[in-house]
C-alpha cells in the first residue's frame, strides 16, 4: 500500500504534535478574542463618535490586511523596529487575537444593533435601569444571534493558522511537509497521501464546529 508510511515510525505522533500546536494557537487566540471582541462590540454601540472612529479604523485595518502580512509585520517588524523578539507562536497568537477580536467585535456590534428598539423601550417601561436592560434583556438576545457566526469565526481561525508555518511555526501543515520531504524518494505519491491526511485532520476539527453552528442557528430561529 502506497500510504503505509503514514503508519510508520513516528509519523502519526508527529502529526498529532503539529495538530496540538495548531489547536494551541487557535484556542488561545479565541480565548483572548472573546472578552476583547465583546468589549469592542459593546463600545462600538456607544454613541461616542471618537470611539467609533478609532474602532472602525482598527477593524478596517485588520480586515484589509492579509493575515500573512500581519504575521510578517508582527514577527519581523517587532524585531527590527521595536527590538522585541517574539517566538513564532507568540506572534501568531497576537495576530489571530487581533483579527479574532476585530471580527468578533463587529459580530457583537451587529447582534446588539439587530435587537429592535422596542425591546429597550419595553425594558425601560418595565422600570429597568439602563444597565439592567442591557445585561438582562438585550445581551441575552444578542448572544443567541451571535453564537452561530462566532462558531464559524473559530473554524476560520483554525484553518488560517496554517499560515503560521511561514514565520517558522511548526504546526500541522508544516509537519506534513517535513514528512513529505522525508519520504520523498521512497514514496512518489507521498505528498498526495499526506495532504489527504491533513485534510482529514482539519475536517475532524472543523466539521463538528460547522455542525454546532448549524444547530445553534436552527435553535435560535
Amino acid at each position, binding site marked *: 500500500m502506497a500510504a503505509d508510511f503514514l503508519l510508520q515510525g513516528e509519523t502519526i505522533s508527529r502529526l498529532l504534535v503539529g495538530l496540538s500546536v495548531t489547536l494551541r494557537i487557535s484556542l488561545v487566540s479565541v480565548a483572548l478574542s472573546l472578552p476583547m471582541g465583546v468589549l469592542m462590540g459593546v463600545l462600538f454601540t456607544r454613541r461616542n463618535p471618537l470611539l467609533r472612529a478609532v474602532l472602525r479604523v482598527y477593524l478596517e485595518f485588520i480586515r484589509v490586511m492579509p493575515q500573512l502580512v500581519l504575521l510578517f509585520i508582527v514577527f519581523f517588524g517587532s524585531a527590527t523596529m521595536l527590538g522585541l523578539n517574539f517566538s513564532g507562536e507568540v506572534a501568531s497568537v497576537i495576530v489571530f487575537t487581533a483579527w479574532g477580536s476585530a471580527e468578533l467585535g463587529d459580530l457583537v456590534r451587529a447582534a446588539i444593533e439587530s435587537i*429592535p428598539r*422596542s*425591546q429597550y*423601550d*419595553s425594558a*425601560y*417601561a*418595565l*422600570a*429597568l*435601569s439602563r444597565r*439592567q436592560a442591557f445585561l*438582562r*434583556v438585550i445581551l*441575552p*438576545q444578542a448572544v*443567541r444571534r451571535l453564537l452561530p457566526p462566532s462558531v464559524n469565526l473559530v473554524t476560520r481561525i483554525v484553518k488560517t493558522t496554517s499560515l503560521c508555518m511561514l514565520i517558522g511555526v511548526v504546526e500541522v501543515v508544516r509537519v506534513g511537509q517535513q514528512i513529505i520531504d522525508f519520504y520523498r524518494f521512497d514514496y512518489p505519491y507521498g505528498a498526495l497521501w499526506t495532504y489527504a491526511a491533513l485534510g482529514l485532520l482539519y475536517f475532524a476539527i472543523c466539521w463538528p464546529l460547522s455542525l454546532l453552528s448549524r444547530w445553534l442557528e436552527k435553535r435560535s430561529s
Partner: protein
Amino acid sequence: MIELRHVSKQYRTRKGAFDALIDINLRIDDGDMFGIIGESGAGKSTLVRCINLLDRPTSGSIVIDGRDVTGYQGRELRAFRNSVGMIFQDFSLFQQRTVLDNVTFPLEVMHVDRGEARRRATALLERVGIADKAQSYPSELSGGQQQRVSIARALINEPKIMLCDEATSALDSRTTIQILDLLRDLNREMGVTMVHITHSLDVAMRVTNRIAVIDRGRIAEEGPTDEVLTSPQSETTRLLIAHSKGTVSDEEVL
C-alpha cells in the same frame, strides 16, 4: 389623573430641528379609556412615550395625580414607571424566556419572592386567558396570544395607568376585537386608566370614551369619542373619517 401641560418635544435631526409635539395640553381622568388618533407621523407615539418619560418633553410638564414627574431620574423614575404599564405593536416579549418567565420578569428584577411572583403571574395569565401556554416560548404563540402575554406582563405591578401603542395594529380583525374587549374588561375590573394610540377609527370607536385627534404635533380636536366622530369640528378629523370610509381620493389627502 394624567395631565400634560404645554408639552413640546423637539428632535434634532441632521436636517435641522423637528417639532414632534407643539404645546400639548391634555387631561386624562382616572378610569378613562382615552384614544389618541392621527395619521402616522402625527406625533401620537411621541405623546404617549412622554407620559412614562421614554421620551422627555423639551418643555412643559407631565403631571400624574398632581405630582410633576417630568424631572424624575434614577430610582424615582423607575418607581414611577412601575405604576405605568405599556404594551407595543410588536408585543416586545423576551424571546429567550417562557411565557411565565416573561410575566414574572419585572418582579424578578425587583427581587420579589419567586413563589409569590409565580402565583401572581399565573393568576394574571389565567385572567387574560392564556394560562395553558405558561411554559411555551413566545415564538410558539400567535400574535393575539403574544399580546395577551404582554398585557399580563404590563399588569403584573398593578399599574394605575396603561399605555397601548398601536396594540392591535399587527393583528387580524377578529383577534383585534378579542384583544380590545379584553382591555376594556380589564379597564372596568381593575380601574386601570388606559391610553390607546391608534390610527384606526374602528379601534377608537370600540374601546375609547374620549379621544384627541393629533395633526402635525398639535391637538386638532378633543372630546367624547362619539361626539368627535359623529360631528367632527376639525378638518383633520373629517379627513380621517372620510379616509377610513374610503370616500376620499389620494389627491384630496395630499
